[in-house]
């Protein structure tokens, strides 16, 4: 039953959604059924988020109680989660500090702490990228040289001063990069990757619908 029920749900839901693609969504029974399933999916999705909160709380709370290594950071994680979550779930009609609107606790924490911290973390990547580019970009062979030259040209093209520099040379180099590198070679390669990934996703979906692929249940 533990295996049969998820496989049956996946099969029925999958088939309905595939079949509904060929029917009018608002006027047919199959269309209505698929609409209902999609609403269920968003509800289940909401519960998975809740499951995530429960899981992270259980794991970290146990570590804090046992005073495991770095337990202070785990405590900060827990405090952060609930400091943002609790005031945001209460309705703003109770107090302007509740809810998620401008002026609420959630909003204040998000704007003054979450946003700058995340932006800072991402910004530090520029330091690592500069260091990594310096170390890794070596024209060791023909392929690496091609990659290096293309990367340098695109980097120049994507900034105004670089574009001005490229325009010092004859032949409208910036336009050529846009036309032949980005809308030419790059486009062709990306299209191949997208088509390949889409075929892979279709094959995987079919395997799940037919019950061949069962790893999503936590077993093979």
């Amino acid at each position, binding site marked *: 039953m533990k295996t049969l029920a998820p496989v049956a749900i996946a099969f029925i839901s999958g088939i309905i*959604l595939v079949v509904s*693609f060929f029917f009018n*969504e*608002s006027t047919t029974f199959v*269309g209505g059924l698929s*609409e209902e399933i*999609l*609403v269920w*999916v*968003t509800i*289940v*999705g*909401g519960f998975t*988020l809740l499951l995530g909160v429960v899981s992270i709380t259980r794991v970290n709370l146990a570590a804090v109680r046992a005073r495991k290594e770095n337990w202070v950071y785990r405590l900060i994680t827990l405090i952060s989660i609930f400091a943002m979550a609790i005031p945001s779930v209460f*309705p*703003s009609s109770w107090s302007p500090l509740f*809810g*998620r*609107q*401008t002026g609420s606790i*959630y*909003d204040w924490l*998000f*704007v003054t702490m*979450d*946003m700058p911290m*995340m*932006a800072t*973390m*991402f910004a530090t990547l*520029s*330091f690592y*990228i*500069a*260091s990594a*580019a*310096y170390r890794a*970009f*070596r*024209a060791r062979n023909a392929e690496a040289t091609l990659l290096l030259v293309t990367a*340098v040209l695109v*980097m*120049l093209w*994507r*900034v*105004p*001063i*670089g*574009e*001005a520099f490229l325009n010092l040379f004859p032949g409208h180099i*910036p336009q050529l990069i*846009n036309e032949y590198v*980005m*809308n030419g070679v790059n*486009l062709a390669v*990306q*299209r191949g*990757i*997208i088509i390949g990934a*889409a075929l892979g996703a279709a094959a995987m979906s079919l395997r799940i619908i037919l019950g061949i692929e069962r790893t999503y249940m936590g077993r093979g």
Partner: protein
Amino acid sequence: MNIWERMEKIDRRWIYLLVAIAVIIPFIIPVRFPVSVTPETKDIYDYIQAMPDSSVVILSFDYYPSTLAETQPMAIAAMNQFFRKDMKVITLSNIPLGGPSLAELVTREVAKEYHKVYGIDYVNLGYKANYVAVLKGMGTSIESIFPTDNSGTPLKDLPLMHKVKNYSDVKFIFDIADNATADYWVSIVNAGYGVPMAVGATAVMAPKLYAYVGAKQIVGLLGGMKGAAEYEILLNKRASAFRGMDVQSLVHFLIIALVILGNVGYFAGRRYRRKAGL
């Protein structure tokens, strides 16, 4: 260690210091290099300009706060163009971390400038989990997926939503994304329901999205901060992306200089070692 080896093996801390200087200097001494506009950006601007005034559009905030520097200017610029044309804007987010709050922040700020009223001129639907189901479900009924807006007001209490039931009432979709949601907007909404759309994406994501531009699945593409700066120029409202181009210019040049330096050190060092019989 000879000079070539030194060039090849600069301590990473010096590189970090140089990057920091390259980032800080343009803020102290702004240069404001001229920015040219690529066809991908111009196409978006022209398409929106050609749309009838008061059209209903969707602006999706599918980016995390980490990529604010690149994506937020795009969202602000798009809101400016929409409100200048008196368009009705529906915002939503397919990412849980911050998307709805960012939408709230941007829309309220720009709306104030144009004296737009919440519920009549714009609505923030917020976030719902599982974006594939959300994007598909909105094709039949937006209200079934988002019974309330971001602050819990039922959609039936928002006048704008009285005339918007599903994608057939939406004339254009602008997705600002730093992740794969842009692909789903294209493959589910554009392909399935035929709604014209454009994408604003981070510079890392942009190359992939050229495939959709080439296939005319999106009318145009804003790629990274440069794309946002181009859009600001077209709107004649130079803001943070345009200012950021000075920083990006200098850092790009620094990286190119470091790559050249590393390669000169590599080849000269190899020749030196060969000559010395090492």
